[in-house]
């Protein structure tokens, strides 16, 4: 899977099927997100468009942690959860997403590869 992400033509020459690999990655990602959705539904409100905000927060989390880094995503996920809750409590509920996005943009200036990612 990493080989396909790096260079799909070269991976093909080595006998790896890029399409299959991408399909598997996509399937795992979809399954995991579905699981997260089922878990979050027990304490969160649900509307047809609830995924939009969550998806953007997920993007931010992954780029904050560093693309392709599992511990990075874990740390960033915890960090963002704590920051969001704290800023919602200390500054005001409407500003909690704002704080996260602003921190993300500020972060990009100083450590663009994310917490644990490589360029």
């Amino acid at each position, binding site marked *: 899977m990493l080989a396909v992400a790096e260079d799909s033509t070269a991976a093909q020459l080595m006998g790896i099927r890029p399409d299959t690999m991408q399909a598997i990655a996509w399937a795992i990602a979809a399954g995991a997100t579905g699981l997260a959705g089922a878990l979050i539904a027990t304490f969160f409100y649900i509307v047809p468009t609830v995924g*939009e905000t969550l998806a*953007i927060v997920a*993007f*931010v989390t992954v*780029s904050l942690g560093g*693309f392709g880094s599992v511990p990075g995503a874990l740390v960033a996920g915890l960090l963002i959860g704590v920051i969001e809750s704290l800023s919602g409590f200390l500054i005001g509920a*409407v*500003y909690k*997403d*704002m704080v996260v*996005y*602003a921190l*993300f*943009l500020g972060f*990009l*200036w100083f450590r*663009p*590869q994310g917490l644990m990612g490589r*360029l």
Partner: protein
Amino acid sequence: MRRLLWLAILLALFVAYPLAFSTPFQQRLGALVLLYAIAASAWNIIGGYAGQVSVGHVVFFGCGAYAAMGAYAHFALSPLVGIPAGIVVSVAISAVVGVPTLRLSGHYFSMATIAVAELVRLIVTNTEYLGAAVGLSGPTVPRNVFDLSFISALPYYYLFLSVLAITLGITWWMANSRMGFYLRAIRDSERAARSLGAPASRTKLYAYMLSAALTSVAGALYAMMFGFIDPESGLGILISVKILIMAALGGAGLLFGPLVGAAILVPLEEISNNLLGGKGAGLTFVVYGAIIVLISRFQPGGILTLVNRLWIKRTGKVMDGEAARGIAHAP
């Protein structure tokens, strides 16, 4: 010479359109097509020529729209005065987003543009000065012609046509300048372009700023035509998607691609809204989704690339230099 002739015929068709189709609906439709063509052409500079997909372009659209309406609502000036202010703010935002992210390859740029669009939307929704969730209104009764508040869509049509001509002129000039060559080289292989001495980050940043400024003008024109702006219509992420799809459908990286895309999608949206009434508003986005899937699966270069290929097959020669050179990349 042949190309100039075709260009003149195209221009004549656009000038004649509102005279031939003179119902208010048709004129309004024509104006909207041109408006979105301006925004999509502006997106095309960074998304098509430079190959950097910005998903948060609506933020510049909103800057222009809010600047135009703010000039009227707070200072009782003509909305036209707001255009330069909108451009300045847009270019500043594009620099803040572009400087760190355009140095990197990969998804960072697209991610950052989404984040900034959401950030600005949330800030505006909670700022009383900018009308919060209610939005800002333009002049209800025009005081003079500079308020650009007309009942008929005809004046807007010709205004948008001239702005579109200027936008396409700038794009054409840019594509044929040194910067255009740099951008195409960077899009095809950034590493190769860098190693040959092209200043990749700087060129991409300039393209992004230019694109932001032009999008902001499109936003200001939108606000003037509708006389009203709120966070949903001025900063909603769906407008970014709309702009992006128009450029990609017509052919990203081609001069007339966005115009073709807008000429297909805007009538589609307006007619489906008309036929289905209030219930059908969401259907448009179902169509958009289907179009994204179809383009990326079958014709990543967009309609103009397809037309060009068929033309080559039939006549055995290339239609024109622009289309052949800029065989587009899927965003």
